């Protein structure tokens, strides 16, 4: 089967959904009103509450939610064949992620732009709010550990990317200064930034830097992980304009350019799908597709992380309520497009089925490496770039996304520790440096906890997906409760919520057994923690819905 057909089926489906389904959701379920005075106008202060152009806001929403996760997840999940991953990404984006993101924006906008965490406290209850904090902490912990491992793996496997990945940080630092000190205008700066980044990518293959397999008794992988966390800790303590702001800008440009290159090469080359449609011959030890598929692909189908972005920042800047459809739903579609690209790269970018099977020889293998190698194969054959240059390009793209998520994640984790220091009167914990140390320490324990070389990170990928889905479930619960109170249709959010809850609990039980059989007690404990959280979430859902129905029943009687 040709990859173009799959590509257009996927894109066509998502486009159709945007024009039809999102219109229905926006008009009939959320009843978005262009005359509603949004918090950006009501509380306009020039700091947090600023009415912002909807395309700009979409760009921010999209680039904050589209990171390495929609690449890693789908690229792992194609081990079951390309069809299940494709269907879950397309239908997940249409019926789950789009509705979730629009709903989170709507709920926040209708409640003075409060964050989803605060909303949980108001709409569902105090207990649910504490639960929400714990789940967020777990998500951040896992995302940092996983991405540290992912970047380290990429840098070991593609040494040609070492110079551009770290060079990009230097480029961002210089750009930040140029803009901050108003030395030259932004248009020129963007041009210089992109040229410098791609210059580094082109010279990267001629100066590969390979970390030795063993350094001072530690594997090379582990050294990279330590360096990465050192970097992320420093980056998360710097003022945002020094590194974060210019780097996000360059990353955003790079995301658009990278997507255009990948999709362009796919259309020109039109490779055949090499991987099987449904893989009957999965490697030994691969868990069952149901429920694991639905937690392996979290971002790209539905992800709770989006709710944090929607509620925390985007809702404060929404100019008109109707813009929520473009920002939320189309933001989710954008991420689905990235996930679709990852699926195609990891299944069509191989010369033969033998090559593909060699890449996917065990569950959790392949992943982002398969994305880079498959994508490089497609780009080099489609556009005629040397294969190492193409691989360097995609490695830089994936590593920069993961790096951005890491230092944002560490920053957020630091805030949580500082808040706990405030609550429990621990002066030392309130200091930024100490809180950062605690955050880095907990991530390192997780990254090394399951394997001495730091390979433990990828084992927790499905656990990360599970926790992320739980977060999405909590957001959907808030939206559903609000809808029921307003007497609107609730099944468009309750349906996805129930599906997610069932799948996460099933996935946790499956993994519980496999961790126990593998004797991995560290992950076993973690799994139990998440399992308890998910059962509590389910009970909160039941209790909240029951209470709301009783409320509306008494209202009808009275």
């Amino acid at each position, binding site marked *: 089967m040709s990859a173009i057909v799959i590509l257009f089926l996927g894109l066509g489906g998502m486009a159709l959904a945007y024009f039809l389904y999102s219109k229905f959701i926006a008009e009939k379920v959320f009843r978005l009103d262009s005359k509603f005075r949004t918090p950006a106008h009501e509380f306009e202060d*020039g*700091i*947090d509450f*600023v009415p*912002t*152009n909807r*395309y*700009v*806001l979409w*760009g*921010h929403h999209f680039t*904050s939610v589209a990171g390495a996760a929609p690449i890693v997840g789908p690229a792992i999940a194609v081990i079951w064949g390309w069809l299940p991953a494709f269907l879950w990404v397309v239908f997940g984006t249409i019926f789950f992620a789009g509705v979730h993101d629009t709903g989170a924006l709507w709920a926040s906008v209708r409640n003075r732009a409060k964050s989803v965490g605060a909303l949980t406290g108001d709409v569902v209850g105090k207990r649910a709010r504490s639960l929400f904090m714990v789940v967020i902490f777990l998500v951040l912990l896992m995302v940092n550990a996983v991405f540290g491992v992912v970047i380290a793996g990429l840098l070991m496997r593609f040494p040609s990317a070492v110079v551009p990945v770290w060079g990009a940080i230097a480029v961002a630092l210089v750009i930040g200064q140029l*803009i901050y000190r108003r030395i030259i*205008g*932004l*248009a020129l700066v*963007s041009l210089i930034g992109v040229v410098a980044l791609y210059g580094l990518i082109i010279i990267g293959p001629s100066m590969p830097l390979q970390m030795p397999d063993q350094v001072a008794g530690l594997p090379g992988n582990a050294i990279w992980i330590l360096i990465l966390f050192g970097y992320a800790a420093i980056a998360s303590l710097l*003022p*945002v*304009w020094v590194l*974060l*702001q210019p780097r*996000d*800008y360059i990353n*955003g440009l790079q995301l658009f350019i990278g997507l255009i290159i990948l999709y362009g090469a796919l259309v020109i080359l039109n490779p055949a799908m090499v991987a099987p449609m449904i893989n009957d011959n999965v490697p030994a030890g691969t868990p069952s597709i149901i429920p694991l598929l639905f937690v392996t692909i979290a971002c790209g189908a539905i992800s709770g992380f989006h709710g944090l972005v929607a509620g925390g*920042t985007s809702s*404060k*800047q929404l100019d008109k309520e109707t813009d929520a459809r473009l920002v939320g739903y189309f933001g989710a579609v954008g991420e689905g497009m990235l996930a679709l690209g990852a699926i195609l790269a990891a299944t069509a970018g191989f010369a033969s089925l033998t090559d593909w099977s060699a890449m996917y020889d065990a569950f959790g293998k392949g992943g982002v490496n398969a994305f880079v190698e498959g994508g490089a194969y497609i780009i080099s054959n489609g556009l005629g770039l040397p294969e190492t240059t193409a691989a360097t390009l995609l490695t830089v793209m994936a590593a920069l996304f993961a790096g951005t998520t890491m230092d944002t994640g560490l920053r957020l984790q630091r805030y949580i520790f500082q808040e706990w220091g405030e609550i429990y009167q621990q002066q030392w914990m309130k200091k930024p440096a100490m809180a950062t140390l605690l955050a880095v320490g907990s991530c390192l324990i997780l990254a090394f906890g399951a394997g001495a070389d730091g390979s433990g990170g990828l084992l927790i990928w499905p656990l990360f997906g599970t926790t992320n889905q739980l977060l999405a479930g909590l957001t959907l619960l808030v939206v559903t409760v609000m809808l029921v109170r307003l007497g609107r249709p609730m099944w468009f959010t309750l349906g996805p919520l129930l599906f997610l809850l069932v799948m996460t609990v099933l996935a946790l039980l499956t993994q519980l057994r496999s961790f126990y059989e593998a004797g991995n007690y560290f992950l076993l404990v973690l799994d139990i923690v998440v399992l308890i959280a998910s059962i509590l979430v389910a009970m909160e859902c039941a209790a909240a819905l029951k209470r709301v129905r009783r409320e509306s029943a008494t209202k009808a009687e009275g």
Partner: protein
Amino acid sequence: MSEHSNDEHPVDRRARIKAWLGQARFYAEEFYSARYRGAIARAQRDEDDLFMLMVFSELMGVPNPVAYYTLELQPLMLERFHDWHRRMGMEKSPLDDFRCC
């Protein structure tokens, strides 16, 4: 290029390109700054608040909190202090609690 644009008056075209560039610059600048506007504005507000406190604290009867910390600077300033008060036209140290020569 279509024929339409060839027929167009050069001044019109220049104005149109200029408008387009202006629009592009607006989008680029918004895309750069919108995400971090809050964090940066807050940092600036904090600095301004501190500055206000230092300027107006005496006026409001609040002892300047910075004065206390400047004590720590005394050993560092001591060597330069003598030359300073001489240059300022004072033979002896003008401060009661800061003795010199």
